[in-house]
């Protein structure tokens, strides 16, 4: 006997019924439950996807497995025939998938900042000296990208170099940007004879890698908020560019920051120019929500610029401002007075320059 015949009250033939019986409903729910169970199973399995499979999918075919160090880049010739040095080995090229093979955990900094490829070559002084130089040329998506990785690793207290606008040297190394490239020349010691070769080597590379006219020699200063930062109190060499996730806020990118020392207090200024005013407003709201979710509370303060919002958490202060497409402010100030004073100067400068 069919289990459907009586309880469902269905009739054979063309006649229609007007309601669904309890058994039909139960059967329908059962089908839906099975569908939901399948969906839940699929989603659960998907969330626990075997990393070995992910790696294999990224790895590609077997003959492409060992891709680290492929000598195939337009930049490679720049590392040939450099004056005063001899190559210890051929140049090797690393792409987004293989960069971590060479520099491990530091790869993420580059990958999140528009990395295209890196060429590395070990060199030694031509005179047979045992010293060694490792040259790393990072080809980034734009001059801003190059500045981001340059500034993100800048060594505090390092000596400025006149090689390019963005250049500095330490006891054993020289770091600079040229166009969309970021270069590191690292020697294995800080002996004077070795150190003295850094600048000439850098100059030779600069000559080979300088962009041709029209290619974009520097950062796009017209759209860069770097010029908006007040000069007074700014720590030299502290200007940085975060291409992604500034201050830990996911998606908050292209944010310039600079450190300030103000009468015993410390603070960081930040500024980002968004594509339009609506996005500037949105990011201000997002950052405000982010701070509130992380224990900050809004406070009132005298002498704050009009429209500014001040927040505090355990003696650390934030000030948020917006001017047209510009979202800017003060981050982690150690005194409210310093935060308000810096915000006022910043606001005045931004208002004048953003006209």
């Amino acid at each position, binding site marked *: 006997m069919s289990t*459907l015949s009586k309880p*469902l009250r269905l009739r054979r033939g063309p006649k229609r019924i007007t309601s669904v019986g309890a058994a039909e409903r139960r059967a329908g729910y059962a089908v839906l439950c099975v569908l939901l169970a399948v969906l839940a199973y699929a989603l659960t399995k998907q969330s626990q996807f*075997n*990393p070995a499979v992910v790696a294999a999918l990224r790895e590609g075919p077997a003959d492409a497995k060992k891709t680290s160090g492929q000598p195939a880049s337009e930049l490679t010739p720049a590392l040939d025939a450099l004056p005063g040095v001899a190559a210890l080995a051929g140049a090797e090229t690393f792409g987004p998938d293989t960069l971590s093979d060479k520099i491990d955990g530091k790869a993420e900094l580059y990958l999140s900042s528009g990395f295209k490829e890196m060429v590395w070559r070990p060199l030694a002084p031509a005179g047979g000296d045992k010293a060694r130089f490792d040259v790393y040329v990072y080809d980034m998506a734009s001059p801003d990208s190059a500045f981001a990785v340059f500034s993100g690793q800048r060594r505090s207290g390092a000596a400025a170099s006149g090689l390019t606008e963005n250049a500095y040297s330490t006891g054993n190394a020289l770091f600079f940007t040229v166009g969309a490239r970021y270069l590191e020349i690292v020697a294995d010691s800080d002996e004077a004879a070795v150190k003295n070769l850094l600048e000439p080597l850098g100059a030779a590379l600069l000559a080979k890698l300088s962009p041709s006219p029209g290619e974009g020699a520097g950062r796009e200063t017209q759209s860069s908020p770097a010029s908006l930062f007040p000069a007074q109190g700014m720590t030299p060499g502290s200007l940085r560019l975060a291409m992604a996730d500034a201050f830990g806020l996911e998606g908050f990118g292209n944010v310039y920051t600079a450190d300030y020392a103000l009468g015993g207090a410390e603070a960081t200024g930040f500024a980002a120019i968004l594509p339009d005013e609506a996005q500037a407003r949105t990011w201000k709201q997002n950052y405000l929500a982010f701070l509130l979710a992380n224990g900050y509370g809004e406070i009132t303060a005298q002498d704050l610029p009009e429209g500014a919002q001040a927040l505090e958490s355990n003696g650390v202060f934030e000030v948020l401002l917006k001017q047209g497409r510009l979202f800017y402010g003060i981050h982690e100030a150690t005194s409210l007075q310093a935060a308000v004073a810096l915000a006022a100067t910043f606001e005045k400068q931004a208002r004048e320059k953003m006209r």
Partner: protein
Amino acid sequence: MNKPSDTGHRAEGALTRRDFIKRAAAASALTLSAGALYAGLYDGRGPQPGDLGKVLTGLGDFSVQTASGQGRMAIVRGADRAAMLERAVTALGGIEAFIQKGDRVLIKVNAAFATPPSLGATTNPELFAAMARLCLAAGAASVTVTDNPINNPESCFALTGIAEAASLAGAGLIIPGEGMFSPLTLPGGKLLVDWPVMAGAFKGVTKLIAMAPVKDHARAGASMILKNFYGLLGGRRNVFHQKIAGIITELSLLAKPTLCVLDGTRVMLTNGPTGGSLSDLKAADTLIVSTDPVAADAAGLELLERTISEVPYIRMAEAAGAGHADYTRLNPVRINLGA
């Protein structure tokens, strides 16, 4: 009674028995097809890496049990790494407390980069050599050293000075080869599932010593003993960079070392794990030797001027049962040899 409906009239387009059966059958067929398709496509085992064989569940427990069951630690201040190591090991009961005659010792170093020792990105070769000599003096049948730098291992061992140090100290050097990797699934692991690990280097090994420098790490916050076990992984391990704390936690359960030697003589405070500038390094003149890898890392954090909240994998490793995040519970022996 077979009433057609409770209301006595039938709406146009209402369901017939035939319609219902058809629809139920179609939905069931669709459900079963989707399930069958998923089950057919799902690869529960994952790809098999290199030399196959059975899937491992760990690389072994090489720890030495103490009477109290408590871990041990010595923290030595000084500048001469070999002398500091010797004093630390003596303070923990002497090398004989860890290495017995006939032991086959594997030393896992950090040789991840083809950079000179002066840059402090890798295990110091003199410290490694001192450890190898101590083991051989205690009667070890063999001492081998290994790591798996993905890019050009030979060059990494040569340039870090570890290959030469091994040769001079009488230790063997294991260069990772494809046949040395076997799949491993950590019980309860979410990331180490069918993942190739360098099990070949552990063949016949009876003692494991982990040696690493104290370094900043852009992704993990710090690279010390636990992060150094990342070098036992094969495959395209960079897929784990997005879950770095999770993978280090699982690595803490991969193998239980006999001894951990954490070199804080010079600490890479910034721009780790590669560094590059000598200004990234700071002299901290400290060597930490412990049987507990989690405690060693926790002590190393102080040299790195970090708090434990900034490096989440240490507490996670403790919670997983790999050791103690409060290293003071080990009552570390403190020795000052003078800088």
